């Protein structure tokens, strides 16, 4: 009896972690965009690092339930570290510099994770916001290293892996960002579907109960916060490398707030949420900025207000319906490899 349940649960979890057709379609579309949309590579590059950044926020917000208003702190650290490494040719090779920047951000994430363990949502908001503001202030106050308010100029990015030089049309940059995003996405996906990922969900659902069944709540939160900081640092480093520039803007409050919007548009607690949100957000931003270059913030605010008034659940329901439709369409296909993970009770 007991063994039967364990087997059932294991089977369910394995099914859940299986790649679905929609996921294949998503990444194939991303791959196709390299060849089909060469004129849009500059904005697609932005979509790629923004998607990675949103994925990072989703790790702590969607999977661990920590509301952060200062996620730009890690993004900014990654950005500055990458720009400095390139400028002074400490680590000229971009991929290695990317990893180092991510690790630098992860250090900050680890150090500050102990601050977010305590207190209520409001305290967490304040602490994360405070950390980002302090980082911005530090960057502002050491102009001899960071360039201060003028930003860090004169950054020259060496060829990637010593062979691929970044071009001004952003073709190489886009492929580079997309590859980094894909690799880190795979890693995140692996982590989310691992027992560790399940325990994170348990912590989000009810910290007290998860502690009672033997999950170290604080340990899990520290780990995921550090991981998310690493991701955010890599995203920031991608920005710095593809634009060969870093400025105080990377730490701004607006960046953290926009990021929340990106993630909310796509849906939280769902790995593709950040990526889809990044695509929609960038398209929207591009479109609005063309209409009213100066006041696009107003419309961003309006979107936020409307999303909350309509209800995030209903928007989530919308994407959920699309997903369900896609799955149903695929289920009709007689190819067994495309069988979708679904709990046995569903669809009967």
């Amino acid at each position: 009896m007991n063994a039967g349940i364990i087997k059932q649960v294991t089977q369910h979890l394995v099914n859940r972690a299986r790649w679905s057709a929609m996921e294949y379609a998503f990444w194939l579309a991303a791959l196709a965009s390299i060849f089909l949309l060469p004129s849009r590579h500059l904005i697609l590059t932005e979509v790629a690092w923004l998607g990675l950044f949103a994925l990072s926020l989703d790790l702590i917000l969607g999977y661990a339930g920590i509301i952060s208003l200062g996620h730009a702190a890690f993004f900014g650290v990654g950005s500055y570290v990458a720009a400095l490494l390139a400028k002074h040719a400490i680590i000229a090779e971009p991929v290695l510099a990317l990893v180092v920047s991510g690790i630098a951000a992860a250090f900050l994430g680890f150090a500050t994770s102990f601050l977010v363990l305590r207190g209520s949502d409001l305290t967490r908001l304040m602490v994360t916001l405070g950390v980002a503001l302090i980082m911005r202030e530090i960057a502002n106050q050491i102009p001899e290293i960071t360039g201060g308010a003028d930003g860090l100029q004169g950054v020259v990015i060496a060829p990637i892996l010593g062979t691929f030089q970044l071009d001004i049309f952003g073709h190489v940059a886009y492929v580079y960002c997309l590859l980094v995003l894909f690799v880190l996405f795979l890693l995140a996906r692996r982590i989310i579907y691992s027992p560790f990922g399940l325990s994170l969900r348990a912590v989000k659902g009810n910290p007290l109960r998860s502690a009672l069944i033997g999950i170290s709540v604080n340990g899990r939160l520290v780990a995921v916060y550090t991981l998310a900081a690493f991701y955010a640092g890599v995203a920031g480093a991608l920005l710095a490398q593809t634009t060969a520039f870093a400025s105080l803007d990377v730490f701004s409050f607006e960046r953290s707030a926009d990021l929340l919007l990106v993630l909310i548009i796509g849906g939280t607690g769902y790995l593709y949420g950040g990526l889809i949100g990044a695509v929609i957000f960038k398209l929207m931003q591009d479109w609005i900025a063309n209409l009213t270059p100066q006041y696009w913030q107003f419309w961003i605010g309006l979107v936020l207000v409307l999303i909350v008034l309509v209800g995030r659940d209903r928007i989530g329901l919308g994407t959920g319906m699309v997903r369900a439709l896609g799955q149903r369409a695929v289920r009709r296909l007689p190819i067994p490899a495309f069988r979708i993970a679904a709990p046995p009770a569903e669809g009967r």
Partner: protein
Amino acid sequence: MLTILFDGIAYGMLLFVLACGLSVTLGLMNFVNLAHGAFAMAGGYITLILVNRAGVPFFAGLVIAFAVTAVLGALFERTLYVHLYSKTHLDQVLFTIGLVFMSVAAVDYVMGSQQVFIQIPSVLQGRFELFGIGIGRYRLLIIIVCGILTIGLQLILSGTRFGSRLRASVDDARVARGLGINVNRVFTLTFAFGSGLAGLGGALGAEILGLDPTFPLKYMVYFLIVVTVGGTSSITGPFVASLLIGIADVTGKYYVPKFGAFVIYTIMIVLLLVRPQGLFARAAGK
């Protein structure tokens, strides 16, 4: 030295008037309102238009700013905020950030993005010496006005029927409802009054804090610090927190200008670490 202390106290008093509405509404409905600064900005700009363009006397402008922002606050509370009390903190944060962005862009559109100044009467300009302390007249006015308001608020809270209803609702809204207190109405009134105070603070503070469309973003942190550090259970907590922050900020900026901005954030983080529930909080029964 004492002059700095004096300026710090004036600054702190101003922060208190700006933020006390936020702390009460937060305590009452557990509602995270990041858009509080937008009401302060509204008050500032209303006074600006009245005083600079329509030629209304400065003090009358302050009173009107209070009244208009209070009405505005009540309106927003009844039409928009009321839908959000049952939602998660994340929703509340998103919604109020959205409002902030909209207010910033809208004011930028209508009034322009440059920093503006309200013409203050000549009586209030300049400073005088008293026992060797340089006292700015305008700052003295702020201390007097804010001091009266603080005492008034304390008296209302502790002495009147409305005050006891309010305190009951903050302590435990459910039981208060059970006792027949119309918590929603108490909340609307409080929200309107708090917004009005923010508007008054914005109008008074335009001279010291500066007034431009990014005001709600720039000072959001300060309001939140006051509230989180002071706790939401009384107005004494935010009052002491405001004074502390005001003095620390002014002193920090004067003596160590290079690290001025760090002082305030560091104080906040350290205080939150030592007392996560705020300086004067009791264990909340919610």
